[in-house]
């Protein structure tokens, strides 16, 4: 699977095997700790869905966060250029330039951005770019007990991410938005 925007050496993305998620919140708390995310707002979270009638019940969990889209609408609508995208695909907010107008929060199809009540700027998942730049995995990926998330470089054919996408069926969420989301959910 190649993406249209990738011209650089690396294009980071994430594969999510939601069936393995046990909703234990390790990823959520690890993210809070790593990124000093205030109480009440989240850079990642787990959607829960229960259906059916006793005793024929089903429950599913969907880990969610920024999809680090190939063509991110949040970046397009930002009036100051605070929302921007690195060449490796990671979408970030430059806090110094953020005026807290929240356009990006509305533009995001995944509800992945929040207004930080302490700094009055917008926060979001950074794929832990500071860790990735040191050669480490994002905190949520590393801490996960059931290893639901696989982070990696789409352009590296040897990466586990690449191999999973080459051999497993998957979907992306809200593809109709044209954002080109880079979170791949295994089916």
């Amino acid at each position, binding site marked *: 699977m190649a993406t249209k925007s990738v011209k650089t050496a690396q294009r980071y993305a994430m594969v999510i*095997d939601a*069936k*393995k998620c*046990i*909703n*234990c*919140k*390790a990823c*959520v*708390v*690890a993210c*809070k*700790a*790593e990124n000093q995310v205030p*109480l*009440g707002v989240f850079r990642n979270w787990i959607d829960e869905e*229960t259906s*059916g*009638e*006793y*005793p024929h*019940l*089903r*429950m*599913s969990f969907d880990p969610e966060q920024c999809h680090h889209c190939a063509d991110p609408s949040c970046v397009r609508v930002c009036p100051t250029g605070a929302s921007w995208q690195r060449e490796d695909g990671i979408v970030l907010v430059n806090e110094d330039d953020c005026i807290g107008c929240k356009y990006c929060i509305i533009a995001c199809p995944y509800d992945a951005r929040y207004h930080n009540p302490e700094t009055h700027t917008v926060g979001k998942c950074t794929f832990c770019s500071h860790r*990735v730049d*040191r*050669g*480490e*995995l994002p*905190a949520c*990926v*590393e*801490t*996960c*007990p*059931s*290893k639901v998330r*696989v*982070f*990696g*470089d789409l352009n*590296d054919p*040897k*990466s*586990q*991410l690449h191999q999973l996408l080459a051999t497993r069926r998957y979907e992306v969420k809200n593809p109709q938005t044209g954002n080109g989301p880079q979170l791949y959910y295994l089916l």
Partner: protein
Amino acid sequence: MERRTFMEIIGAGSLILPPLACGLRRPVAAGPTFLDGIATTCELCPNKCSVLAVVKDGHITKLNPNPDNPKSRGMLCARGNAAVQQVYDPDRLKQPLIRVGARGEGKWRPASWDEAFDYTAKKLSDIKAKHGPEGTLWSSTEGFQEIFFKNLGQAFGSPNVMRHPSLCLASVNLAYSMTYGTVPSFDLLNADYVIMAGANRFESIITPDTMDLIGGTMERKAKLIYLDPRFTVTASKADEWYPIKPGTDMAFILAMMNVIIAENRYDKAFLESETVGFEQLVEHVKPYTPEWAEGETEIPAQDIARIARAFADAAPRAVFYAGRRSSWYQNDFQMRRAQALLNAIVGNWDRQGGMVPNQKIAKGEFLVLPWDDPKAARVDEVEKAFPLASAKDGVYLPLRENLLKGQPYPVKGWMIYKQDPLHALPDQGKTMKMLDQMEFVGVIDIAMSDTAWYADVVFPESHYLERTDPIEVMPGIWPAAVYRQQVVKPIHDTKPCLEIAQGLAKRLGLSDYFDYTIEQWVEAEAKELPIQNGLEHMKQRGVVAVSQPKYGTTRNPVHRFLTKSGKIELFSDRLKEAGHDPLPVYTPPVQPSGGRFRLVLGRKATITHATLTNLPWLHEHNPENDLWIHPEPAAKLNIQSGDLLEVSSSVGQVRIKARVTQEIRPDCVFMLHGFGKKSPWLKRVHNVGAADSVLLETAWDKVSGNAAMHETFVKVVKA
């Protein structure tokens, strides 16, 4: 062990840990200095996961999983991640406190350590003068420094050192010990067929079982059969979930044995060479047909028979998982014995994917000056009433009964380490009476627990990230020895348990028994670790592990099981001699009537026991507990989600909000543990939700003395 070796072994077995992504450095790099952070060991639950603490300018900024430990499988859960917040929690205990108002009034006087030690030593000495050393009770829960607390109680001369197993896994441990002479582990990494009853492994995390089971069911497509009155996360991941009628698990197990034996699906050669009592078992299970079990369990007979066949066919890579917190019913020991027998007859013993005796890691021992044995017998009379149970651990609920009666002698002083008996024991009202009749109560903890709130002296212990602890060996299929080392200096006026014990010992004239430092203790332990420069290694890596499972070491003609007969005891003479059923006999449990419900308990991955609910990062995910009730009875009682309910048992009453849900049997209700706190210092959960311990009645397993916490029926009405 080198990390590389571990990865190869894991890779060669069946895959759990995915290969690490895209050439990222950590945790791939090798060599002794690769670790970014100080290696230590988590204490937020009893799993002892290895962590790497990142420190910047003397401040802990993050805890990351240490992949060196095969037991923690390279993960750190939500609680482990939240430990940072515990250190910097403004509500934690920061200095010794001495009560000045009435008990529970919350009036405290900050005290110096000398004052707190002097005060406590005087109280304990007064009690000793009046009632003897047996007039004191020393109770604690599991922890690396628990040994120092226990030693102080013993050196003081008290026989009443009360550990936690009779509130936890005493029945399961005793059942497997009585059968196999040891308590084995279950190889979920390689099992093809797993049956779990009430062991909610995906919400109640046990390493490495939780991660191995996810790998087993999701990667290798192993079958998981799950029995639970609640639709838990584990139920949702299982291939088949049966909301079994509570208290009837033994019927299900006996019927499985009935089918396996009747259809000759058992491991004949193994049974002949390694076990005693198979003939009696054959006769014993004949009446327990699947049709009969259907009436007890409400699980269709054809399903029981089908599961029994599939289980036997998958053996030896098939296990009936023992479970962990086994404090459920008054027949709990016998139910766990039935499991142990079922596992035995399919021959999964000491096989890959089966039930495997634990390996250990050698470590040295620091030799302390021995003290005299206590002169008095234990106040719980464990040797007399529960001769098969572990006398050194004691039996908590029978102890409380005796203590309240002042029989066989008065106990007037209570020292408590790391435990909150007001929540750990059923029937909070009774525990409160026990507190009331104490002349002195001292608590060592890191937070103002409810029991601490009612104590006379509170000793603040240093947080695990501020302490160095003894080396701990974790036996298992992948055994490990782990080390907890100080990451930052204590930020408040706190001390580790050893120094608290030493402070008291000095004033009690017991200093000779505590004449060492933690460094000396650890050094002695590290000397005999199976690795060169053990102490240096531990400081660098925090863990020594054996990554190579050993299967079949006990499967040879000369092996003797540590039982009376030297074999696996299907029929147990020792049980017979002690007046118990030598084979598990089923008695139907009493069922709730008169519109009452059975109160069932369970765990969640963001809470440990009754603690951690006050930590903001965890509290966000469980701000309040509620009462799960099925829509059918809820409709009859005109209850809707969010309604305030009054829930009462024969011993107590609480108010709690309703959660009307399909995810529970209509005859049960459920609530999470860890809420309805009395201590205002646990401000987020103070008077928020309700404490199950208020409602739970006193009952225990007949053989092990383990608390039976699913024997309470409650009435539910709208408040």
